[in-house]
């Protein structure tokens, strides 16, 4: 077997490497989506406000509703003057945008962006009763680890340093105040965000997003939103605050309360900007993985549709394709929802922000954890052993 490896085996070996999967995920899925979001946000806000928005960027006759605006933006940012204030701390000033951007890109490693692919079975219908040969499985998750969501919290906390250091290194009082607002806000909401996912952890018995998706299965009534509805609302609110966007955009309200990257121009600013949009995509991916079944399509099992006794068998490649597109669709929907919220709600006052974080979200998420724990314990007592973590 080892001696005569075909080119197909080598191809799968490359496809299964973490570096390749990360590259594929970031540069072919996340970056294009985040770049398009910079345009989509302006177009969507325009449509919500009865305007048309930017629709004119074109290459010759190719106009495509102005989608190419993100190319124009990138060219503009790259060709702008790279200005550093005279008294700024040059090293930290350069480091800050990287610290804002890198953690999000790293955190994507835990996202299960597709089902496990069995390359040798692509043209067959998977038989659920027979264990599939797992040695040739390509898992669509870069870093599958038991402490998955903790890894996400740990890594994204580092993004906090990006904003704070940007504010401090700029040698600008307004930027410093913005950086302080950013760090206080992100610190406050991380607590509620972590605790809201604890309820999900108690129910599903795992912190690994890939296992969470498998636990949820193809039945929409068994997904995270149904078993942990309060956690969904709490997590979504706290996570929007984490991305520092309206209604929680106090760290950088562009027109009035000048934010932490006021001294940044050109592509340095572009990195903060891109980091914000990648965080939107990341949050959408986490939301769909934890609460909306990830790549699970309703009633689509590995061998085809099962619904109320009806079974439609499908080859493995078709199932995989549908599940990939399902995940993409869910992510795009939650990106859209976040943009809609951002253009609907006015900004909070700082005291309202802190009040919401510490006096509402934190007690409610603690309550959610306690009630969930009680229910899980009672169910376990009465024999529902599948709620416990798989041993």
């Amino acid at each position, binding site marked *: 077997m080892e001696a005569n490896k075909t080119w197909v085996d080598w191809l799968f070996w490359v496809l299964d490497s973490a570096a390749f999967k990360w590259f594929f995920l970031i540069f072919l899925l996340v970056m294009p989506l985040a770049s398009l979001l910079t345009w989509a946000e302006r177009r969507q806000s325009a449509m919500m406000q009865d*305007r048309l928005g930017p629709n004119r960027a074109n290459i010759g006759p190719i106009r495509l509703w102005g989608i190419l605006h993100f190319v124009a933006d990138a060219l503009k940012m790259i060709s702008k003057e790279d200005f550093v204030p005279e008294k700024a701390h040059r090293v930290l000033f350069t480091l800050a945008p990287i610290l804002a951007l890198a953690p999000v890109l790293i955190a994507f490693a835990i996202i299960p962006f597709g089902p496990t692919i069995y390359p040798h079975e692509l043209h067959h219908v998977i038989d659920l009763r027979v264990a599939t040969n797992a040695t040739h499985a390509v898992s669509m998750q870069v870093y599958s680890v038991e402490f998955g969501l903790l890894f996400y919290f740990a890594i994204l906390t580092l993004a906090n340093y990006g904003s704070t250091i940007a504010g401090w290194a700029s040698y600008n009082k307004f930027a410093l105040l913005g950086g302080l607002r950013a760090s206080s806000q992100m610190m406050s909401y991380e607590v509620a965000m972590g605790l809201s996912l604890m309820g999900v952890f108690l129910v599903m018995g795992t912190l690994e997003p890939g296992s969470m998706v498998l636990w949820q299965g193809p039945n929409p009534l068994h997904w995270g939103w149904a078993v942990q509805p309060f956690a969904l609302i709490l997590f979504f609110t706290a996570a929007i605050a984490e991305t520092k966007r309206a209604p929680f955009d106090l760290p950088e309200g562009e027109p009035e309360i000048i934010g932490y990257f006021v001294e940044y121009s050109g592509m340095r600013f572009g990195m903060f900007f891109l980091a914000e949009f990648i965080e939107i995509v990341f949050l959408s991916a986490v939301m769909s993985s934890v609460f909306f079944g990830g790549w699970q399509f309703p009633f689509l099992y590995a061998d085809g549709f099962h619904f109320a006794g009806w079974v439609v068998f499908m080859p493995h490649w078709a199932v995989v394709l549908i599940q990939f597109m399902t995940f993409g669709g869910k992510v795009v929907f939650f990106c859209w929802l976040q943009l809609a*919220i951002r253009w609907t709600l006015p900004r909070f006052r700082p005291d309202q922000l802190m009040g919401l974080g510490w006096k509402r979200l934190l007690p409610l998420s603690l309550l959610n954890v306690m009630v969930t724990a009680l229910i899980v314990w009672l169910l376990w007592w009465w024999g529902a052993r599948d709620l416990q973590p798989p041993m």
Partner: protein
Amino acid sequence: MSHSAQPTTSPSGPEVVSVSPHSDKVRTVRVVRPPREDSSFLPATLKGLSITVKHFFKNVLTKSEVETIQYPEEKKPYPARNRGLHRLMQREDGTVRCVACMCCPTVCPANCITIIPAETTDARVEKYPAVFEIDELRCVVCGLCVEACPCDAIRMDTGLHAPAVEERASGVIDKDTMLGMGSRSIAVQGGVGPGWRAK
């Protein structure tokens, strides 16, 4: 001020329930807090989202409420009395109607009109403008020149904007240009000239 159990309302501020007999600064007031369902922000968020999302889908699907005018391709017609670039009106024979009476440069608040009069052989008019220039960069588009003109020689009804120019000197438009935009006026130019004395 005596202690009053009757609730009194002050025009500004919260409702005063009672006032201390010792000092009218010590008062019991009723604070109106927002109802619990409002302070949770959730219903208001959903209500707001329903409005914006409704607009979003209506505009994405039908563009029915979009107010935007796609400017270079699509222009909103100006109102009839819009004041645009100046033009000079013509007589029946195509010559300029202006008699260089100097009313418009006199009334012009921006001093943008230059007229150099010259004598004409036409028996009916004494002068004509040898030079008639308007600096459109200085013009404040007030329309007083049109009001002042006694013989319907200058109008601002072209509907054109002052052109974008690269040098200030190019912002000055001359007589021929303005006359080229002009047309024959149907207004009767008064009098029959100095010849009436001969009658």
